[in-house]
């Protein structure tokens, strides 16, 4: 009896599916971080300058900062609801490596935050008069970069999960860790705008992503155990 239960326990993909559908069901919907991204991007021309030339200069940095914020502000919720309703305790006593469910949840977070944001970024680029040759690098850097943000953010979120809505605490802890990827991400795009070879920063991002993909789920599940008293 125990063997059956073990082999069929919901694994990585089940968690991905569940979390994606949960955030689609949730009140604000899966499009929420996307909306935030759009809303905040529209603030920029209004408060800084509507001049297309100036906007084009700002575009890479602004798009990247806003993507970072959208990811940062939604990562808080990756574990906190599970903590509050008791699902996290059930996850802790599930008979499998906890890193898999955790990775599943991280992937789900990226699927509802980073990925749609990446797809939407060309529209924002258009509105910000970004030059044509920058779109490709922008999309690639955002796709890899937001995945990294989700991974690293999850570790921070698992450390602060027992604080309830730690809210801004998470931003204090996460922003320093996010900085390197922000630098490489914006350089990829600004290099492309300046018609310089942009593959070096992008490759660095890829390498960082690969390392994070291995380490972060392990670290996050460890942190979850510790913060729950284990």
């Amino acid at each position: 009896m125990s063997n059956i239960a073990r082999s069929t326990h919901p694994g990585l993909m089940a968690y991905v599916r569940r979390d994606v559908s949960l955030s689609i069901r949730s009140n604000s919907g899966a499009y929420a971080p996307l909306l935030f991204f759009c809303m905040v991007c529209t603030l920029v021309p209004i408060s800084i300058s509507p001049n297309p030339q100036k906007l084009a200069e700002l575009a890479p940095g602004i798009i990247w900062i806003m993507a970072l914020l959208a990811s940062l502000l939604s990562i808080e919720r990756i574990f906190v609801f599970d903590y509050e309703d008791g699902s996290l305790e059930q996850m802790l006593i599930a008979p499998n490596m906890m890193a898999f469910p955790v990775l599943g949840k991280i992937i789900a977070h990226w699927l509802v935050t980073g990925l749609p944001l990446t797809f939407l970024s060309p529209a924002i680029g258009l509105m910000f008069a970004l030059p044509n040759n920058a779109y490709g690098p922008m999309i690639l850097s955002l796709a890899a970069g937001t995945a990294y943000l989700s991974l690293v953010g999850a570790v921070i979120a698992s450390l602060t999960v027992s604080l309830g809505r730690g809210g801004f605490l998470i931003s204090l802890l996460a922003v320093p860790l996010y900085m390197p990827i922000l630098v490489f991400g914006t350089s990829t795009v600004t290099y492309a705008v300046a018609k310089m070879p942009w593959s070096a920063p992008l490759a660095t991002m890829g390498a960082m992503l690969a390392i994070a993909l291995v380490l972060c789920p392990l670290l996050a599940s460890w942190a979850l155990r510790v913060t729950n008293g284990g």
Partner: protein
Amino acid sequence: MRKLGRKWRWFHRMGSPRWFYEITGGWLPWLIPLAFSLLAIGLFWGLFLAPPDARQGQSYRIIFVHVPASFLALVGYYVLAIAGAVGLIWRIKMSFILMKAAAPIGAALTFIALFTGAIWGKPTWGTYWVWDARITSMLILLFLYLGVMALQRALVSTDTAFKASAILALVGTVNIPIIYKSVDWWYTLHQPATLKLTSSSTMHIEMLQPLFFMICGFYLFYMLVLILFARLEILQREKSSRWVRSLVSEDCVI
């Protein structure tokens, strides 16, 4: 309950979804052909008969969709807000139903206005998007519509959803003039008016006539869709009532 005066009785009967459903059922046979024929005439006239513009050539013809859509997108918000206010003040359910119906239509029209404007911008301004005062406030209008829709959808209890989104619509109304003023002012501050929408006074009379048809057609079309959406909502909300059941058993289609 207190005895109602005659006027008030009429007012409250109008608030009954069933009354609305029955009375608008009689309008539909007139409204549908009228709206579509006006649209057809306007489109045909505008797209094929009207002369090309002196400077813009053929591309200006998008005006026949763009202007009516922009116009009704603005009007639509007032419909939404007034319906919400009436619902809140006199507690009329029908008014809330109309408000709920008005939100997606308004959002769609706003989106059409933005989309056609963007398409038009490419040949005339050489870019799809520019942060012009009018365009920006149109974008904000789209957000206001989407906000009302999202709140409506998110609140599960229907009564609460109606009241809350009506409050939101009211707050938005207070803000629309402020938004418009501020954005207008912001634009003129930062950038000299290099790009300006061609003013209607310069428009040729032969372009104005089909435009007039299109605007009337859009108006009727707006009414039509609003009524249809409201009827659908009524059927959904009153699905357990006797009159809707008998309707369904008669195999009536909306």
